[in-house]
């Protein structure tokens, strides 16, 4: 879906090029003028708040900079230190990978499952959709993260429920083995956003294909794997890319649940949380910039990988190559 849209938008609009009139004369000049006028806020933002800062951040990543004295060039020092001397960095990488690999697939599976359940028109459909979608809006707030923190604390509601059936965990947020799952559950709970996108995708699948499958006597499972999944693959692809990009940058849940510490025993020290600690608590701006660039590279790498393999499993309707 993404690739398709990108292609579509990036190519010049064919309907327009046909009329050569528009190209010359004062009309196109007027258009250019207005285009730049309308784009001026965006251009200012792109230059001052994106391109400039990107260059600066790349430069800072090779320096030692504490915000108060001039940056001092240290070459690759920050990067070398990150990988060879910083155990907390390495554990934040591990924690983040664990989170991404757990939460993204679980969330998408839940989203797809519920979307399939809701797909057929039935009474109350609108209400159900909204109910499933609500956590996606609320879940990003500090208020809900606090609820999670309280539900999973020692002697908290979940703990007392589990104790009542004979399982003694002693609270989740204070134990390194469990704390991560609290945040994963919080993330998966917000499956409503990808679910709505799946629903839209399911609607696009022509009924003919299902009719044909029924005529061929295909089982429900066979129909799912041979019709639904391939036809839905562009949407799965889109959701997967979005989920990967987002979950690598996840912050609020980990910050609130661990009270800004990333504990216990750094088990919820998410990458962005550690970046925040280094940059805005220890004022090691150069070091944090190096971390930011590694994050960019990692996200680019993973999105690239998904794009690369997508040729094998993403099918676009009407694409016969």
């Amino acid at each position, binding site marked *: 879906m993404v690739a398709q*849209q990108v292609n579509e*938008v*990036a190519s010049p*609009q064919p309907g327009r090029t046909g009329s050569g009139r528009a190209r010359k004369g004062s009309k*196109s000049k*007027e*258009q250019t003028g*207005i285009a730049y006028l*309308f*784009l001026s*806020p*965006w251009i*200012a933002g792109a230059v*001052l*708040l994106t391109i400039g*800062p*990107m260059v600066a*951040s790349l430069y*800072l990543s090779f320096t030692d900079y504490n915000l108060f004295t001039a940056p001092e060039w240290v070459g690759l020092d920050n990067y070398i230190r990150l990988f060879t001397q910083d155990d907390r960095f390495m554990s934040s990488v591990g924690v983040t990978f664990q989170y991404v690999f757990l939460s993204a697939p679980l969330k998408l599976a839940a989203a797809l499952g519920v979307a399939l359940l*809701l797909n057929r028109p039935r009474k109350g459909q609108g209400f*159900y959709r*909204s*109910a499933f979608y*609500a956590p*996606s*809006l*609320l*879940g*990003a*707030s*500090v*208020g*809900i993260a*606090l*609820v999670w923190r309280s539900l999973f604390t020692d*002697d908290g*509601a979940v703990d*007392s429920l589990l104790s009542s059936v004979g399982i003694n965990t002693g609270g989740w947020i204070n134990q390194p083995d469990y704390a991560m799952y609290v945040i994963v559950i919080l993330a998966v709970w917000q499956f409503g956003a*990808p679910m*709505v*996108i799946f629903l839209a995708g399911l609607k696009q699948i022509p009924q*003919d294909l299902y*009719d*044909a*499958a029924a005529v061929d006597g295909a089982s429900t499972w066979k129909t799912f794997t*041979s019709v639904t999944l*391939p036809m839905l693959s562009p949407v799965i692809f889109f959701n997967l890319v*979005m989920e990967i990009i*987002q979950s690598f940058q996840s912050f*609020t849940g980990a*910050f609130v649940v661990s009270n800004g510490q990333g504990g216990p025993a750094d088990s919820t020290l998410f990458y962005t949380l550690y*970046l925040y600690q280094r*940059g*805005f608590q220890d004022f090691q701006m150069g070091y*944090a910039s190096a971390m930011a660039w590694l*994050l*960019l590279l990692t996200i*680019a790498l993973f999105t690239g990988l998904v794009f690369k393999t997508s040729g094998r499993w993403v099918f676009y309707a009407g*694409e*016969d190559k």
Partner: protein
Amino acid sequence: MSTATLTAPEDRGQTPVTSPKRKKPGRVRTVAWHAVILAFIAVLLYPIAWLLGASFKPANEVITSLALLPESPTWQNFVDAVAGIGGTSFGTFLYNSLFIAGGSVIGNVVSCVLAAYAFARLRFKLSKLMFGFMLMTLMLPHHVVLIPQYIIFQNMGMVDTFWPLILPKFLATEAFFVFLMIQFMRGLPRELDEAATIDGCGPLRLFYYIILPLARPALITTAIFTFIWTWNDFFSQLIYLSSPSNYTLPLALRLFIDQTSVSAYGPMFAMSVLTLVPIALFFFAFQRYLVQGLATSGLKG
């Protein structure tokens, strides 16, 4: 295409339209379906209901109880929450949050719709290059530009003011909304432009009288999501705001976390509830737009 094997037989015209798949499901199955969905929703919405209940519970009941309804409900938590924390009143936090969210909505809608119109409907030299760059920024993690942006705002003396939170919105830095509006505008028929041009409409009037009114759904979606995201945005506010009188509601809530004594839990939940109220209101008022906007654009919550 993998589905080719399943294509309908050639004589499809003669097959009855009502395939077995489309038959109305049996009554038992329908009831079972509703039961499953409702059970699922109950589990899903339990934390929210629990929060609501907890906000009315006295201190000794709050944490351990799984029960949704308080045994002895009290308003005291809300009274304490509204009284504020650290010498700053709840009203101040609320005002700060509203101001920042409101400013962001205006900034985002205005700057993004202008940029989107230029990209979607106007022809100019660098359009491909700029568009490519805009798409790239869609995927750029905020953290890469975060530190230099912070330094810029610090040098301008804007740290601990609302400027760093609102100003970028006026510069269309949220590429997602630009992209959303471009996609929407591209869906509007080109014939409109041509007809208007023949009638002597320039691009400015075309924008104002034709595109802008038609793009209203996209504008509303942008406004709603900007409000909710800004309202919830914790990271930027945490970095840029330092004095409690400038704190927004999420930051004020965080102040409550630091008071981990049991007695603070009730007011903390009351405040959480109050923080979620505007989002809930927006949700109920605009859920149609939210779900549609999301479905048509691939926007995330």
